[in-house]
């Protein structure tokens, strides 16, 4: 199999690998797809039809402090990245999706209708990163209290200044630091 693939990639280095019209890259030997936001839902739907019946994980990364990360050509880096790990039990394969989500409009369509199990994962991403999933049935905070301010896993969430909820002596703490 190696013999068949290597000459091909050597012959055409200019043409990047594609899957369902989406850029396919590799990271540590794992296959990673880089769909745009408009391609996202359509891509996941066709992958679901193509035996990727389990969404094992959905999470996000805030690349605020690391904007120059390595991305394949043609993918414009945005602040947020939603990372979806799909699993095909039939083929025993995993596939990862990295979707760029801009800070100005941090929304993404929900996968709830395709994988009901992503309901809680998307809530966690909303809670921790403030990325809203459109058409999600119950987009509420899941780990933090309802009245919490800010999204803790964002890189600009000030760790040194987290108000201690039950402390009455907050002002002096701030002065001391």
């Amino acid at each position, binding site marked *: 199999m190696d013999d068949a693939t290597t000459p091909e990639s050597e012959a055409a280095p200019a043409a990047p690998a594609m899957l369902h019209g989406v850029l396919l890259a590799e990271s540590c030997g794992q296959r990673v797809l880089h769909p745009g936001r408009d391609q996202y839902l359509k891509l996941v739907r066709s992958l679901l039809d193509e035996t990727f*019946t389990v969404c094992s994980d959905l999470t996000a990364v805030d690349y605020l*402090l690391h904007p120059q990360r390595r991305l394949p050509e043609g993918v414009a880096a945005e602040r947020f990245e939603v*990372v979806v*790990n799909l699993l095909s039990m039939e083929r025993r394969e995993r596939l990862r999706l990295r979707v760029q989500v801009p800070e100005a409009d941090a929304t993404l369509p929900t996968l709830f209708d395709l994988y009901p199990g992503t309901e809680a994962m998307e809530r966690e991403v909303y809670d921790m990163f403030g990325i809203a999933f*459109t058409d999600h*049935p119950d*987009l*509420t905070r899941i780990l933090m209290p309802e009245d919490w301010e800010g999204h803790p*896993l964002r890189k600009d969430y000030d760790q040194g200044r987290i108000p201690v909820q039950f402390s009455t002596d907050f002002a002096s703490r701030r002065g001391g630091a």
Partner: protein
Amino acid sequence: MTDSIVDVIREGNDPEQGLKPRSEITARELLREVGSVLRMSEAEVAKLGDIPADPAEDQTMILNMGPQHPSTHGVLRLMLELRGETVLRCKPVIGYLHTGMEKTGENLTYMQGGTNVTRMDYLSPLNNELVFSMAVEKLLGIEDDIPERAVWMRMLLSELNRMSSHLLFMASNGMDLGAVSMMIYGWREREEVLRFLQKVTGLRMNHNFIRPGGLAADLPAGWRDDVLQLLEMILPRLDEYDVLMTGQPIWRDRLQGVGVITAKEAEALGATGPILRSTGVPWDLRRDMPYLKYPEVEFDVIVGSYGDAFDRYAIRLNEIRESIRIVHQIVDRLPAGDYRIQDKKVTPPPRARIDESMEALIHHFKIFTEGFKVPEGEVYVAIESPRGEIGCYIASDGSATPYRIHVRAPSFVNIQCLPHMMCGGLIADAVAVISSVDPVLGEVDR
């Protein structure tokens, strides 16, 4: 409706987390509510029509179970909508144990990271450490260079950990269903396994023993006899459990046909581990996407057929037997060699070298203070923990701490099956259902 919730959030308001009473929701919302897509057809919802706004007609009540409830295994809160004793809807409300471990992980070096992840699923800490170490090793590109002995040792510890976790399940499951003597027995046997783990790692739990590059230390002298003695003791006790519970009519009545889930539903919800296997899907990462040396040992993947709480109990009981089988093979085959990779970038120098070499001392110091740098990249590694697929996603920016570390906790996903398993059941069975999912709240909330 499409954008309404997003608009609410844009305005800076967070919607409420709890289960809303029926008078406040529309039929479409009900259909789309947590997990209800699976349990209610469009036709059924259409039949419901507009939900009666008059509370007098509405014969249901919403009851909070937890967070301070002894059978919710920690601080799980379930909001149950009841009609009489029947559970109509259920919503798990979590987050009471959230301590921001993923955020903490961003400030710990890869060397220290193990102390953090090991506390997530505190009943299978070694599996957490293993998946974290494997992810870091994959980023470093040294996953194939781990010495054979280290790999087999990891497998030994991971299987013993699976046994201790399942034994604790036996105990808590027994306790939840009123078989209190089972609780005592389960804890007793688990303690025996932990005693061995303590001898190896120095701690009963939260070992931080499996580290990127290998393990913290070699097995202690006499470990082989200890392990064999342990296995010899536990195997007949499993048969005692069979006598005590498996064939017992009360036990079977409490579990059979309770909390049923089908294969399709479990897959759609992303459930893994014993929950998925109880529906008849023979999916075990140890066999299907093998890691360590699992292809070289013989074991069976235990599957159920009805997807009920009894199947999940029986699967875990028999998985202890399979783990014993695997451990026997490991004891026979554990090769000699190093217990960690001798890669100067990752592991500290051997203790003896520190006495004779200044460089080794500096190197040792630097590794533990600054840590080692991991090349830029991102990786997702998943293994089979006692509760299902535990995955570790690490994004590295090339520094000595992970830029982002995310743990795909099996309990977090499995707990989302609860609304579906409980629907239409009795509130008395709710305890059995929670117990059969075997959630660890430390991992759910992280």
